[in-house]
Structure formats: structure tokens, C-alpha cells
């Protein structure tokens, strides 16, 4: 792992960090990421991220589930071993809807969740960089990669302090 130097601005309040993101970006500084103990609505937009599109994964996996269920029931009931029950239809569509529905939900949920884990690089052996351990408690942490910014360490520190950071630390990772 490349030893990059990060400046870590610590904020005490989510409104402050949300406001600071705008100010810091306005002064031309690239923000590595902002870490918070809970979801802050509007923060992803303030950072310029595109809307998350997990729904696409859910839809694709869901459709796969529906098709698998339809194939399974149609092939087993209609082709492989049709059972004559009082001369009724071998493959009545409505009675297969419950299976189709359940498999749709099952595949959509798990497919989306695992897509999320993969996109986030998550897993039991993941070794994340934690810039400040208090960011999962009560602090809101803004990490700035110094190697990716033209401004000097001192200048960025001043801007962070001005925009409301209660402390600014240096972290090498």
C-alpha cells in the first residue's frame, strides 16, 4: 500500500460537516471521503457523487429469480413428470405465482446485498483504513489526500479550521 499522507478534519456536528464540504470543495480541495456515524442526507450530493443505483442490481437479480422459478415449475410439472389430477391442466399458471414471487424476492435481496458488499469491497477479511475511530461514535470526519491536492498542508488546515473543524490531524496510510 502506498504511504499517502492524509489530513483528517474532525467535526462535531453533521450540519457543520455538510456546510464545510461545500466550502472546502469551493476552495478547490479534493476530498478523499467523509465518514460519519450515521447517514447524512444530502452529503453524497454535496460531495458530487452520482445517485446510488442499487435498484438496477435488485431488478436484474429479481428478474433472474422469476425466470428460474418459471422454468423450474414449468419443466417439472409440465414436461418432466406431468401428473394428471382429475384431468386438470398440467401447468396452471396461477398456482405457480407464489413460487415465482418468493424466488424473485429471494434472488433480488441477496443479489443486491452481495453486489453492495462487492462494490464497497466489504467482507470478513477486509482491512479498511479508519481515519479516526470516533467516526463511528460521535464525530464527523473529513479525509483529504495531500498527494492529490496542490495546496500545502498548512493552507488546507487553515481552510478546514475556518469551515468549522474542531481538530485537524495527520494520518499516514
Amino acid at each position: 500500500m502506498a504511504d499517502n499522507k492524509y489530513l483528517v478534519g474532525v467535526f462535531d456536528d453533521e450540519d457543520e460537516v455538510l456546510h464545510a464540504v461545500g466550502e472546502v470543495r469551493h476552495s478547490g480541495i479534493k476530498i478523499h471521503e467523509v465518514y460519519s456515524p450515521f447517514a447524512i442526507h444530502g452529503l453524497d450530493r454535496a460531495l458530487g457523487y452520482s445517485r446510488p443505483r442499487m435498484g438496477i442490481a435488485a431488478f436484474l437479480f429479481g428478474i433472474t429469480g422469476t425466470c428460474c422459478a418459471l422454468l423450474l415449475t414449468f419443466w417439472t410439472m409440465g414436461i418432466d413428470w406431468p401428473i394428471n389430477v382429475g384431468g386438470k391442466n398440467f401447468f396452471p399458471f396461477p398456482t405457480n405465482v407464489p413460487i415465482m414471487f418468493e424466488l424473485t424476492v429471494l434472488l433480488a435481496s441477496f443479489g443486491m446485498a452481495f453486489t453492495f458488499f462487492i462494490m464497497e469491497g466489504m467482507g470478513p477479511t477486509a482491512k479498511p483504513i479508519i481515519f479516526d475511530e470516533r467516526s463511528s461514535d460521535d464525530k464527523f470526519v473529513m479525509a483529504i489526500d495531500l498527494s492529490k491536492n496542490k495546496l500545502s498542508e498548512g493552507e488546507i488546515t487553515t481552510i478546514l479550521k475556518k469551515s468549522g473543524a474542531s481538530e485537524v490531524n495527520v494520518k499516514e496510510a
Partner: protein
Amino acid sequence: MHVVSPIRETLVLSGKTYHDVTEDICKQVEGKPTKEWKIVFGISVLVLLYGTAWVCWTWWEGLGVWGLNKTVGWAWDITNFVWWVGIGHAGTLISAVLLLFRQKWRTSINRAAEAMTIFAVICAASFIVMHMGRPWLAYFALPLPNTFGSLWVNFNSPLVWDVFAISTYFSVSCLFWYIGLIPDLATIRDRATGIRKKVYGALALGWTGGARGWARYEDVSLILAGLSTPLVLSVHTIVSFDFATSVIPGWHTTIFPPYFVAGAIFSGFAMVQNLMLITRVVYKLEDYVTLEHISLMNKIITLTGSVVGIAYITEFFIAAYSGVEYEKYAFINRATGPLWWSYAAMMFCNVVSPQLFWFEKIRRNIVVSFFMAVVVNIGMWFERFVIIVTSLHRDYLPSSWTYFTPRLGDISDYIFSFGFFFTAFLLFAKFLPVINMAEVKSVLKSSSEKYPGKEKKTA
């Protein structure tokens, strides 16, 4: 952030800061188990051991240890199954449906309710396996190619739908619960040292709480809630199909799906009420699970109790209106036959008693709420017993009319499920945070006029 009407009560009392929330909830996970916990856990394990011994005996000896007879082939087993599945529904209702409806008060109770869902579904499934009589053949319910030629399961059968519905519901509930746990597991990881840090670190899957992660996380939660809502409705609908698609008078009714779902919410909220009332006292969480929460849950209990009441009356009306002799008799027998007492218990517990909650004083009384939640669950158990046993015990042939008396096997196997449920819930309450810290923190500001932590800083 969020605008909340000033007439709404605050969700979290005592002006907690973000750090207070972390401390209050993590304390239980990080500290040694308390004396109360040890005592209750000890009792639960003893009950579980007694129940397990009986379940083993049931498997060894066969279903003869139950009070079933030639006419009544389903009794306590399926009653317990439907009852537990119904209880399980409240967890998903609280976390998924209330999420879609943006009910912020759910944040204090959703974690425990979801855990309850998972354990209740396991209890329910255990009765399905038990009532098979030969549980080692349980895999027959799965669509597997087998050695007898590729004879498949019958996908037209509601019992096969049930297998799919319950297993999907269980898996998706576990997933939803676990995804909700990830940020809190990361909080515990960041506070811990040594082996605890390793274990919770692995469980937290490397969650950092970055803005991009949170945005995706919120998206995943919302879609999972959207998927879970029709799922939870489908599960009890399919459970009701086990009865409704048969041609037994008293079972063959189209009102079953909505009526079963309302009953499930009813009994589930009652069980959540019971668990939370105990947890809030033992873990000193009175500031998080407030009287307002209890009152709101009591309102839902009253609403769903009344829905169930209307369903009981509708069933009677439709039976009379159908003009079918057998259908009419099934309902008259239900209310006035030899099992009239179970019908009376159901009517009193489910329809009459929750009406007390129209009074605000009673809604906000902890002792009455706890007692009433127990009454509701007794009533809902009787509802399933009434539907199953009173529809079966007098069939088309009067010479085979009979009565059902439970034997020790029925009772002990039911006790087993309680032993498992409480043992599992206590383990959950010891090793995982019982309240969703991340979500509670996100409603802290909207719930109080000014976040106190901010005032301290400016002062």
C-alpha cells in the same frame, strides 16, 4: 435536517448526545452479563433442555406422544406453527413497513423486533419439521431429483408454497437484520481491543461509514424494505392458503389472507411489547423506548385487534349467507359446541380486551400494557386453535366426531419453543446491540428541538 411538528413528542428523552447513545447501548455488549441476565438465561436454558428432551422423545417415539386422533390430525403443532409465524411478522412490519411510511419512532425498537422475527420463524419451522413425524425425510418437501425417478414436489400444493415462503422469509429477514447491524458492529469494533476487536471487525465486514457507502447503504435498505413488505404479506397469505385452499367447512374461506395478516401484526406487536417492556427495564433504556413508543404500539394493537374482530363477524355472516348447511354448522359448532370455551377466550382476548386502549391513561400504563400483550398472545393462540381444531373435530361423519385433549407431549413440545426463543433472544441481547445506534443517532436532532451537544459547544 428533518422538520418535525412541535406537537410531536420527542423520540429520545433526557437530551442524549451522540456519544451518550453509543455508551448506553454498547455498555450491554461490552460489560459482563448482569445477575438478572444470568438468572433469566439459566431458566431459559433449563426450559430449552426440558423441551429438547421431549422433542427428541417425540422423534423417537412418533406422534403418538401427542393427543392427535383419527379425526383431529392437526392440533397444537400447526396452531403453534401459525402462532409463531404470526409473531415473527411484527419485526418485518416494524422495520420495513414503518420505514416506507417514514415512521421515525421505529428506530428504537426495530433491531429487537427483527431479532424476534428470526427466532420466531425458527420456532415455527421446528413445528413443521416435528409434525412430519419422520423429520429425517423433511427434504422430500424440496424439489430435488431423487432416486425414485425424477418425481417432483407438487407445485400446486400450498404446503410446497409454504416451504418456499417460510425459507425465503427467514433468509431475507436474516439479511435485512444483518445489514442493519453492520454500522453498529463497526461502532463496537472501533471501541474494542484484542479478540473482541477481531471478532466484531470480521462481523462488521470492514464498514467505514464513508459517504458513498452510506448512500448505497440507504438505497439497499430502502429497496430491501420495499421487497420485504410484499414478502411479509405473502408469507401469512400463503400460511392461510394451507387452510383456505382445502374444502373443509370453516377453512374454505376467501377472507383468510387479510384476516391472517391482521392477526399476525396483532400478535407480533404484542410480543414486541412484552420483550421491549422487559428489555427497557433490565437494560435501563427508558429514554429510548419511551411511553410514547408503548402508546403507539398499543394503538396498532387496538387497530389490528378490531380488524380481526370484524373478520370473525364477517366469517359468521358469510357462513349464514352462503346457505351451505355444513358451513353454517361449522360456525355454530365453533361458538356453541364442546369447544365453546376456546372461542369465548379468543373473542374476549382479541376483540374485547384491546378496546381498553382507547383510553390514553391505559395506553400509557406499563403494567397494563404488559399484561394486555400477554392476553393478546393467549387470544391469538386460541384463534388458531379454534380455526384448526373446531373445524376438524366434528367432520362429515357423526360416528367419528370426537374431542381433542392435549397430552404432555403437546405441551412439552410447545414449551420447547419458548425455551429456544428466550435463550436465543437473551444471547442476542448480550452479544449484539439491542437498539440500532446509527438510526437512533439520525433521529436525535429531529426529535429534540436542539441537539444538546451543540449547545454545550457554543456555551
